[in-house]
């Protein structure tokens, strides 16, 4: 499998990374090199093999249902590029 310009543009859009027309060309080459290389996995017979979900043999820890966090809006907004009236502010979204 290899990617073309159109696919890379689609991926870049999914990843929300602007890629210029010129960059697109070189990116296609770079990604194909890597994809060709990882392609060797197809040699491995994985019939009946379970996909790994976790490297550690442990149980998911459960938390008690208590309010133990939050209530510090200043800290939450402190690093925001733009915050107004207690909200994060972003360019207007038109639905």
């Amino acid at each position: 499998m290899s990617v073309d310009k159109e696919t890379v543009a689609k991926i870049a859009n999914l990843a929300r990374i602007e890629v210029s027309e010129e960059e697109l060309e070189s990116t296609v080459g770079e990604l194909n090199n890597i994809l060709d290389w990882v392609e060797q996995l197809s040699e491995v017979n994985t019939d009946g093999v379970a996909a790994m979900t976790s490297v550690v043999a442990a149980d998911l820890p459960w938390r008690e249902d208590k309010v133990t966090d939050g209530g510090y809006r200043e800290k939450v907004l402190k690093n925001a590029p733009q915050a107004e009236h207690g909200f994060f502010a972003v360019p207007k979204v038109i639905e």
Partner: protein
Amino acid sequence: MTKLYQGATGDWEAVIGLEIHAQVISESKLFSGASTAFGADPNTQVSFVCAAMPGMLPVINEECVRQAVRTGLAMGCKINLRSIFDRKNYFYADLPQGYQISQFKDPIVGEGHVRIDLEDGSTKDIGVERLHLEQDAGKSMHDQHPTMTYVDLNRSGVALMEIVSKPDMRTPEEAGAYFRKIRSLVRYAGTCDGNMDQGSMRADVNVSVRRPGEPLGTRTETKNVNSIRYVMMVVESEIRRQIDVLEDGGKIDQETRLFDVATGTTRTMRSKEEAHDYRYFPDPDLLPLEFSQEFVDELAKDMPELADAKKDRFVAALHISPYNAGVLVAEKESADYFEALLAATVTKSGKPLSELGTLVANWVIGDLFGALKKLGVGITKSPVSIDHASELLCLQIDGTISGRIAKEVFENMLESGKSPEAIVEEKGLKQVSDTGEIEAMIDEILAANADKVAEYRGGKDKLYGFFVGQVMKQTGGKANPQVVNQLLRPKLDG
């Protein structure tokens, strides 16, 4: 049997499925310790985890797991002892992580079905495909600033149960009844408060149409519909629209639509969305969610009585008519009020439960519901307390007042908020059962109306009511009607 819709070119059948998002009742969020309380100032119920600060990690809230299992049990679904949390990746201003933690391939709850009650008294089983746990997003506000959207993350990370039906519904009524049923189930199970106006429950409505017997048509999904009535309106308008499009030779796009409350119709989402590609994969910050059958059994043992079981019990043990029982259990609060009132009345009157069921049910459904409807308030806001209501019923049961007077006292209670005993006392409404007093009164009336007595005795039976009326008039309606009958009839018949 399936309902068909007539088009210009023949009959059509609709296929409807619902994805209901129900907010889990819990103190804190699904993966963070921030509060879930409704209506707080923006971003005050946000932890570093909810705001997706770098290096923050999710830890699951055990109560949310229990709530999902309880809901699954309430719907008679298969509970999966092992499930997986996946990331659903997409960008949006109110999705701080850039992904929603949800369950994709392996949900916590699998298949089951619920029985819906239809207006004609029939029932229908609707399949439930699955229930999975997932995080809610934050809230975007587009109308606060001319060029900016404001984002509040208070809801970000609140636990939701997404309940996905099978495409088993065929009419707006069925869709409405299913939504109502799920709402009833989660409310009875105590897993979601069902407050639609606070967004605690909302449905994505999937509709397609086809010629009877043909394979499924292309469906549309109308998002975030937040009332039973709107769900029905969406279904109705989508069926009509799709039939029109198809009969005009057009085709239905598989698309996401929005419901416009003002017009009662749906429209395509204005921004033509790119094809979604959510790139689901298991969340590497979490291990598989696993629990034992004993854990499930324990929860099953402690499940509250659900509406259907309650209805059956009302009919069997309290001798309430199936119709009335259905009315009482429709809303959990009504059933709770009824049961509390019944218990209080039993205690006060000393009469057995089985004798009082019908009386109390009739009073709740007739008098109380009527009054609440007039006042425009729900049962939780009832101006009449359980205590006063049971007192009123007991006054009637022990013969202190008649049924008619009881209605009068109830009116007064609604206005004044006073106790029924006080009202009866104050207004001297106690029923007159003293035979001597009533007999004297009857003698007086018969003497004063000798002509009418003669007419009655001459065969004009209808005049009996006149004499009863006279007695009632003289006692201000307080004469015990039974006593009046017992005394009046022999005297008239001579």
